């Protein structure tokens, strides 16, 4: 009995953590930036965004092969299937230069500049 209760308690703690955090709503609307991938190149290869605001990076893959939009600096890793669009959500950033690349084709490089 005690075992079952503590097992349930443990799970309940974990579950409530998820629910609490999922319930929080962000006040700011994100700044939307669109980047396309064509012939394995980012267009534009350099994008700008304001500091301290959430960003929605829309990545459109116009090639016929999959890409993986990745950035170590931005902590993003997302597969963009051919002909599809992926939205990458980025938390408010400090000023700086944030590199990103296509993990499937490392020569495909770009940078997000936050002045």
């Amino acid at each position, binding site marked *: 009995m005690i075992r079952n209760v503590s097992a349930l308690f443990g799970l309940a*703690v974990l579950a409530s953590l998820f629910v609490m955090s999922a319930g929080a709503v962000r006040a700011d609307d994100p700044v939307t930036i669109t980047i396309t991938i064509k012939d394995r190149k980012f267009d534009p290869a350099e994008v700008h965004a304001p500091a301290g605001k959430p960003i929605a990076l829309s990545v459109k893959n116009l090639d016929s092969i999959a890409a993986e939009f990745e950035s170590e600096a931005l902590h993003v890793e997302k597969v963009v299937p051919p002909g599809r669009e992926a939205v990458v959500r980025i938390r408010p950033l400090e000023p700086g230069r944030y590199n990103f690349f296509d993990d499937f084709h490392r020569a495909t490089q770009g940078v997000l500049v936050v002045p």
Partner: protein
Amino acid sequence: MLPTLIIVFREVFEAGLIIGIVMAVTSGVAGRGLWVVGGIAAGVLGACIVALFAGGLSQLFHGSGQELFNASILGFAVLMLGWHNVWMARHGRELAAEMRAAGQAVVEGSKSLAALAVVVAIAVLREGSEVVLFLYGVAAAEGGASGSMLVGGVIGLGLGALVCLLTYLGLVTIPTRYLFAVTSTLIALLAAGMAAQAIAFLEQADILTALDQTVWDTSWILRDGSFLGRALHTLIGYVDQPTAMQLIVYAATLAIIALLMKVFAVPHQERPRAA
């Protein structure tokens, strides 16, 4: 050939580590080879299915389908790993005794093996679906699977298998009386790391926004994208810029597994009825 080799190796590396650990954890249990191979096969099949439906998957849940899918299967793997540890805390001793007695641990052991086979399948599925997408892309760009791509893929896969073998061989040199403690710790850390990574996916999908500020940055010591960083990321969940929520969930996962292992541990001889 080289880019294919590097990408394939990087993806199978993580699965190789996990399979090596699972092989070591289950060493001596009859029938474990079949379970592990079954897990790998299920993972490869799953990877192909996920790659096939990648386009549809990514459009689900307002474009967050991938993140939710990854977070869910990681969460499931965490449950399986936790359950395995708790199960072993309860039955590990009987299992060892049975194995010594008659090698008849098959029936009892298979419950726990099934959980670990699921973990293997998930590890292979996650890494494998990216390999499939990548290789398909290369093949499409070059107008068919080329020989050099095939060679690169096979060598990458071979290196991944080598990682698996080395992990296994390294772990089984540990004396038997410490092996249980070491593997339980490894499994718990693996689970905590996966839980923290599931949180990272939920944060990326903007589903989870509470406590999402970065707590520290150790990227100047070790980037989590580097080779060693990736290995530590898989093994203990190393992240160079963890968020507060990731740290909390990491610690909570470890604490809950440790607590459940204690609560469900083999009852002592003086309380035989407690079983």
